[in-house]
């Protein structure tokens, strides 16, 4: 990942070491995929020259062009970064002013292919342009103030409006405040691992965790492997337990142990339990985010437990009922719970015929059961009818997608 402010003024030479000049501007295609097509080079006599990207050989400390280059011209559908994008006002669909483009993020697909990934709209962009980032960030940290990088994806921008001098968004400003983790994940999967890692590192742990949770497994493990154990452990405490298990399983055994040691006790035992189940096909899908109550408890007591124990659950659809021997004896939905009087005993309204699966149940059967009985979650029990965990519909949904 590159920033336009960092590549501007870079020296441009040919492969025969002739100095051509300095990079002045970059030309890109105003389209859904904003491929960078040409570079504008300011020669020593201050004249500008446009060279197509086809002649680019190397892009590192300086830009190397093939010496048989042929200057070119701006064609239709092409725009300049500096003239048409940088420092321009961003407006939303309703025409409200949002902010200005502080910097442009450039993505490298390979050595010589680049495209625009998005624009930087945060204070970091300004600091980078002022070449003050080095000094300013410690000050920010001192005040514990946030300088989260703030980006807008190219997919949010209407490329056709650019030519008219507007950077117009496809959304309303109010929808922009936070990019949803799912969207960011989709976007990260499109770019290469190194860059994704770069972006993840800049997010705070909570955000990074939710983004990581949304990535596909290959990506997850690749990115996760890059983290030092302490950071990895911190991250795990933010993701759902079934995802945490997946992440841990993707690591080798010594690293897994290292990370587990750094976790708080309750989280560790929970994860160890799930890891021990992971040998089976559905074991990896199991979550520990479920609530059990005794059949003699009243509705009021159950509600109190929901308030106390389920705060960190991703969702709560069912409450499972167990007897004093921890055997699963019933279930009821939260809806069923809410329509009862507060002093009603659970035993009187729970459904006793619980649909369950076992660790050995194949995935397909789990899906079929869920669909057939219209359930959002199924409890997984062992031979003694004790609950090991639950499988929720959103975990199974990904498998379903593959069948479509």
């Amino acid at each position: 990942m590159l920033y336009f402010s960092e590549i501007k003024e870079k020296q441009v030479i040919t492969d025969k070491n002739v100095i051509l000049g300095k990079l002045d501007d970059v030309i890109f295609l105003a389209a859904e995929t904003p491929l960078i097509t040409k570079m504008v080079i300011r020669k020593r006599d201050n004249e500008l020259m446009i060279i197509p990207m086809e002649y680019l050989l190397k892009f590192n400390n300086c830009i190397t062009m093939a010496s048989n280059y042929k200057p070119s011209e701006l064609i239709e559908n092409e725009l300049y970064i500096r003239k048409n994008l940088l420092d321009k006002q961003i407006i939303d669909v309703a025409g409200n002013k949002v902010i200005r483009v502080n910097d442009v993020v450039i993505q490298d697909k390979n050595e010589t292919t680049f495209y625009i990934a998005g624009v930087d709209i945060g204070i970091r962009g300004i600091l980078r342009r002022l070449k003050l980032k080095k000094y300013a960030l410690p000050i920010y940290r001192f005040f514990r103030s946030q300088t989260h990088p703030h980006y807008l994806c190219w997919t949010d921008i209407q490329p056709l409006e650019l030519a008219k001098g507007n950077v117009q968004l496809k959304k309303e400003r109010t929808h922009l405040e936070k990019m949803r983790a799912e969207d960011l994940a989709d976007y990260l999967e499109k770019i290469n691992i190194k860059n994704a890692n770069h972006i993840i590192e800049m997010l705070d742990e909570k955000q990074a965790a939710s983004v990581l949770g949304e990535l596909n497994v290959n990506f997850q493990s690749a990115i996760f492997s890059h983290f030092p154990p302490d950071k990895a452990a911190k991250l795990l405490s933010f993701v759902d337990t079934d995802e945490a298990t997946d992440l841990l399983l993707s690591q080798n055994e010594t690293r897994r142990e290292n990370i587990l040691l750094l976790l708080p006790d309750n989280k560790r035992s929970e994860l160890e339990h799930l890891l021990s189940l992971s040998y089976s096909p559905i074991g990896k899908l199991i979550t520990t985010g479920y609530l059990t109550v005794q059949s003699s408890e009243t509705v009021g007591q159950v509600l109190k437990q929901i308030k106390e124990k389920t705060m960190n659950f991703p969702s709560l659809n069912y409450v499972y009922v167990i007897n004093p021997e921890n055997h699963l004896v019933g279930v009821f939905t939260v809806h069923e719970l809410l329509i009862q009087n507060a002093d009603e005993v659970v035993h009187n309204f729970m459904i006793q015929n619980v649909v369950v699966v076992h660790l050995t149940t194949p995935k397909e059967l789990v899906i079929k059961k869920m669909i057939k009985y219209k359930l959002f979650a199924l409890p997984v029990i062992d031979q003694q009818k004790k609950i090991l965990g639950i499988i929720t519909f959103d975990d199974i949904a990904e498998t379903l997608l593959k069948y479509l």
Partner: protein
Amino acid sequence: MRWLQKIKVQLLLFFVVFGPGIITAVADNDAGGVATYTVAAALYGMASSFLIIPQTILLAVTQEIGARIAIVCRKGLGDLIRERYGVRISLLIFCIYFIANQGVVLQNVSGLKASLQLFSFPWQLSLIGICLLLIVTVIKFNYKKLQQIFLFMILFYLTYVLSAFLSHPDWGEVIQETFIWPQKINIFDFRFWFSRMAVMGTTITVWGQFFVSSYILDKKLTIEHLKHEKIEVFLGAIITNFFSLMMVVAVAFTLFHNNIKVNNVYEAALAIKPLAGNFAVVLFSLGLFSASLLGLTIVPLATAYVFSEMFGTEGSLDSSFSSGKMFYSFFIIQILIGLIATLFPATNLFKLTLYADYINAALLPMIFFFLIKFSESKELMGDYVSKRFTSIFVRASGIIITILVIMTFAGKIFRLY
């Protein structure tokens, strides 16, 4: 009857654009302006308004450029500086601009304080109350309502016209000293020119150049309004200089003629009392009150407008507080700093405002540079590029002002006066 219809249409069109030019120009005569005119007029009499006609033209021409840029490009001066010169220059200019405007705000708060003292109100409490009321009003009211309030406040400048007549002026002397050639003072005295420079500096201000374009933009005028907006801007420049002339008359025929030197407006008002009567002082104070209030509203707004233009945040008088958070924050911060500085008895307001005037003067040539650059750019203005007269006049004035600024600085540094 057709010509009657025509006039009616023209008048209606004029009232559509009515506001920005007059408000910006008249607000140039804020508390700092009143103070400078008063002190200068007490020293040099009517001669302190010598060359008022070229000054009026310069104000009209520069404001017209700002208005034209805003209407043609649909962008403010701040927008264009950011887009054409990047974030570094924008930030630099904004910082200087913020400090300069803060000085002007300070002048207006202390002007408010002086007028409250003249009416012998408990000034601390009243000052806090007025500032808070001002903040709430600007946040709550939309563009249209605020403009009505501004225009109403301008009516209070008429008190200076009355004060001028109460001082029994000799109109022959006014014409001789102001429009022909000053005879009552030594025109080759360097100090006179420094003082004259200061008077011009309060009329042609940096914030005024920014404000007129931002304010027109916020009014959402379009190209068909351009002709009428020009007339409105010219009218504003004439009215403003007429008011300032009246202020100078009121002071010249009382203090200057009786050879009374003053340091500030408060002293001036007290000194006028035995010469022109109590009523004249009441009028003078009322004028000062309204001038301070107008300045105290417009100048922080000018800061806020430029911030949101340069950094792209929502910035309109029509926006709510939540969507225009940054815009209103800058407005509030400037007023609060001014208020707190004035409430502290230890602050030397006179010195602080003097420095602000210098910063303002130093920034002015830079702003002229941008005005010339933008208004002569065919790419930006298309068919509406500056005419030859405007170009030459602004360039010449820019050069003269730059020389004067350098001289004033040199004068300060080497203590020539």
